[in-house]
C-alpha cells in the first residue's frame, strides 16, 4: 500500500498548500474598497499604471490591485470576453483598445452617469465620439496611437533628396533609388517596410492607403458599404507593386515588430509604424540613433489625395458587474486626468488623449516629438468600428483578407473589392 499512501499524502499536501494560498488571497482591505485594475503589461507600462493608481488609492482611502494584461491583443480580447460574459466582477477597470468599444459596449457602464459633462469635453472630441456607442460613453480615452512615416534623414541626404516624400509616388521612386544604391554594400537593404500580414494591422495600413487615395473608409458613417471604388482598387494595386520590389516579399507576413526589426537594424529607408518605434529607434545602442525622423504618411495622387493616419489607442472602461462602479469610475477619471497623462507623456512617451497636455511646456521639453504628433492626431482616420459595432471584427477580417490577397498577387484590386463588397453586404444583412 505504501505507493498509494505516499501518493495520497503528497497530493493532499499539495492540495492544502494550494488552499493556503487561496485563503491568503482573501485578505480584505480595512476601510474603503479594493478595486482590481487590468492595465499595462509587465514592465514599465505596469509600473506607470501602478504608481498612478496607488496615488488615487492613497488620496481616497481605497485600495487598488493592479494586474498586468497579456501582451497579445487577441489573447486579451478572448480573456476579457470570457470574464465579462460569465458576469465576473473580478476586474473592476479594464484597459481596452479603441476598436473594442463597439464590441464590448454591453459589458461596461455608461460613464456619462458618473463623469461630469465638463470633464468629458476636455478630451479630443473625435476620440470621445469613437468611444460612444448608441449614446453610451463606454470608456474614457487614455492614450492614442496613429500611423506615421519613418524616414532615414541621412539616406535622403546621401541620395540628394531635400524633403521626405509627400505623395506615395514620390515615396516609391525615392525608396527605389535609395535601395539600388544601398544594395551595393548591403544585400539585406529594402526601401520600405510596413505591416502586410493578414491581421488587424493590415486593416490599419490598407485603410491609410485607400483613404489617402480618396477611397473612403470601407463603410461610411451611415453604414453604407463604400469599399468598391476605383480609388480604393488603385491604392491596393499600388501597394501590391511594392511587394518584392521596394518591400521584402515577406512583408505580407509582417506585423509591427517585424517591420521594426528590419528598420531598426538599418536595413530600410522608410517604415510605416506607430509612435512606439520612435523612442526605441533612438535608444542608446540603436544603429539608427539620431539618423531618422517621422512625418505624416504620403498623400494619394491628384486632387482627391490627402494625408491619412489610422487612429489607434487605448482607453479605460468600468465593468458593469463591478461591485464598486462609482469608485471605479472615479479611478478612471483620475487615471485619464491631465495630471496623470502629463506624467505618462513625460516618463513613458504616451500620447495624451487631452489636447491641453500637448501644450504643456514641460511635456514639450521632455518630448518635442509629442508636439508634432498633435497635428497627426487631429486628422486621424477612424476605423468603422462604431457603425459596424459587434460586426466590426468580421468586417475587418474580410477587409484584411481581401487586401492580403491583392498583396500576395492572388487577386487584383478591382476583383478583390467586388468580392469584398458582396461579403460585407452579406455580413451586414438587414443592418449592422
Amino acid at each position, binding site marked *: 500500500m505504501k505507493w498509494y499512501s505516499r501518493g495520497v499524502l503528497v497530493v493532499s499536501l*499539495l492540495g492544502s498548500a494550494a488552499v493556503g*494560498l487561496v485563503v491568503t488571497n482573501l485578505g480584505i482591505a480595512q476601510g474603503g474598497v479594493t478595486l482590481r485594475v487590468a492595465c499595462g503589461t*509587465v514592465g514599465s507600462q505596469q509600473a506607470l499604471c501602478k504608481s498612478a493608481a496607488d496615488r488615487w488609492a492613497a488620496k481616497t482611502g481605497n485600495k487598488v490591485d493592479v*494586474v498586468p*494584461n497579456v*501582451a497579445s491583443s487577441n489573447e486579451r480580447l478572448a480573456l476579457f470576453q470570457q470574464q465579462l460574459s460569465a458576469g465576473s466582477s*473580478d476586474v473592476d477597470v479594464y484597459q481596452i483598445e479603441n476598436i473594442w468599444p463597439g464590441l464590448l459596449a454591453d459589458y461596461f457602464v455608461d460613464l456619462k452617469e458618473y463623469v461630469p459633462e465638463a470633464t468629458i469635453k476636455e478630451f479630443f472630441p473625435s476620440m470621445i465620439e469613437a468611444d460612444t456607442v448608441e449614446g453610451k460613453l463606454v470608456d474614457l480615452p487614455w492614450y492614442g496611437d496613429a500611423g506615421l512615416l519613418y524616414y532615414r534623414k541621412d539616406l535622403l541626404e546621401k541620395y540628394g533628396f531635400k524633403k521626405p516624400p509627400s505623395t506615395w509616388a514620390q515615396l516609391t521612386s525615392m525608396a527605389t533609388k535609395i535601395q539600388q544604391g544601398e544594395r551595393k554594400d548591403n544585400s539585406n537593404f529594402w526601401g520600405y517596410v510596413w505591416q502586410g500580414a493578414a491581421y488587424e494591422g493590415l486593416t490599419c495600413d490598407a485603410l491609410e492607403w485607400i483613404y489617402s487615395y480618396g477611397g473612403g473608409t470601407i463603410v461610411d458613417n451611415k453604414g453604407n458599404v463604400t469599399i468598391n471604388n476605383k480609388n480604393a482598387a488603385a491604392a491596393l494595386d499600388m501597394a501590391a507593386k511594392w511587394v518584392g520590389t521596394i518591400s521584402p516579399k515577406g512583408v505580407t507576413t509582417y506585423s509591427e515588430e517585424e517591420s521594426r526589426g528590419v528598420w531598426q*537594424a538599418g536595413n530600410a529607408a522608410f517604415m510605416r509604424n506607430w509612435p512606439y518605434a520612435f523612442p526605441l529607434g533612438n535608444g542608446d545602442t540603436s544603429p539608427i540613433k539620431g539618423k531618422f525622423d517621422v512625418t505624416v504618411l504620403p498623400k494619394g495622387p491628384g486632387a482627391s489625395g490627402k494625408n491619412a493616419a489610422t487612429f489607434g489607442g487605448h482607453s479605460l472602461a468600468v465593468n458593469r458587474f463591478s461591485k464598486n462602479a462609482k469608485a471605479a469610475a472615479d479611478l478612471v477619471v483620475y487615471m485619464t486626468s491631465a495630471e496623470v497623462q502629463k506624467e505618462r507623456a513625460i516618463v513613458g512617451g504616451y500620447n495624451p488623449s487631452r489636447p491641453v497636455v500637448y501644450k504643456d511646456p514641460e511635456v514639450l521639453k521632455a518630448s518635442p516629438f509629442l508636439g508634432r504628433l498633435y497635428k497627426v492626431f487631429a486628422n486621424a482616420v477612424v476605423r468603422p468600428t462604431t457603425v459596424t459595432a459587434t460586426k466590426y471584427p468580421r468586417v475587418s477580417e474580410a477587409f484584411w483578407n481581401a487586401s492580403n490577397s491583392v498583396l500576395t498577387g492572388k487577386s487584383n484590386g478591382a476583383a478583390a473589392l467586388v468580392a469584398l463588397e458582396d461579403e460585407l453586404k452579406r455580413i451586414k444583412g438587414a443592418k449592422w
Partner: protein
Amino acid sequence: MNFELPKLRFFAGRIVFWFGLGVLLFYLLFPFYWAIVSSLKTSNQLFATPISYIPQTPQWSNYASIFTTQPFGRFLLNSFLVAGGTTLLSLLFGVFAAYAIGRFEFRGRQPIYYAMLAVTMFPSISVLGGLFVLIRGLGLYDTIPGLIFTYMLFTLPFTIWVLTSFVREIPSELEEAAFIDGATPFQALHKVLLPMIAPGLVTAGLLAFIQAWNEFLFALTFTVNENSRTVPVAIALFSGTSSFELPWNLIMAASVVVTVPLLVLVLIFQQRIVAGLTAGAVKG
C-alpha cells in the same frame, strides 16, 4: 578481397549513422541553442544583419531582470505545484482506471474506454466558456487546485489510454495467481502489475507533467493573481514600453529558465527511475 567489402560497408554504415545522428541533433537542438543566444543579446543585436551566431557581449542582465520585474520564482513554484499535482493525480487515478479497463470484464467497458477519448476531441477553445462558468461555480477560480482540476481534462484520458495499453500486454497469470493466494485487487495491482508497467508509468507521467507545465490557455483564463499565475502566462505578460514591442531577449531568457528545470527533471528520471524500474519490470 572478400572480407574487404563487408568492412567497407560497415564503415559506410557508420558514417551514414553518425551523419544522420548529427543532422537529427542539429534539427532538435539548434532552436534551443538559438533561444539561448537570443536571450543573451541586446534588443538591437536581435535584428542585426549579418547575423551573429555567438553573443558578442552576453547580456546576463536579461536573466536578472526576469526575476526582478516580477516574482518569477513564485511562478516557477506555481507551475511546479500545478504540473506536479496534475501528474500525480492523473497517474494515481489513471492506474486504477487502466487496471479496471485492461483487466476486468464488465458491461460498459468499451463505451467508457472510447468516451475517455471523446472528451479530448473538442477544441479547447469551445469548452473554455463552460469550464470558466464551472470553475467559478465551484469556487476554484484563480486557484491552483482549479488549474489541476481542469488539466485533468486532457492528461487523464491520455494517461489511462497509455497505461491500459501496457496493462494489456502483461500476461494476467501472475495476478490470477496472486488472487488465488488471497490478495486483494489493490495488492495485486501494487505488487504485481505496477512494476511491470513502470515504463508506461514514467512515460505517461513525464508527458503529463510537461503538458501541464507548458499549458497556456486555461492558465490564462482561470487565473488573475500572482499567487496562482504559472510561467507560460507570466511570459505572455512581458512586453516593452508599448504593447507592440516584443522584448524578445527577455522572453527567450524566461523560456530558457522554464525549460532547464524540465530537462534536469528528465535527466533524473531517465538515469535513475527508468533504469531502475525497467530492470525490475523485465525480470518480472
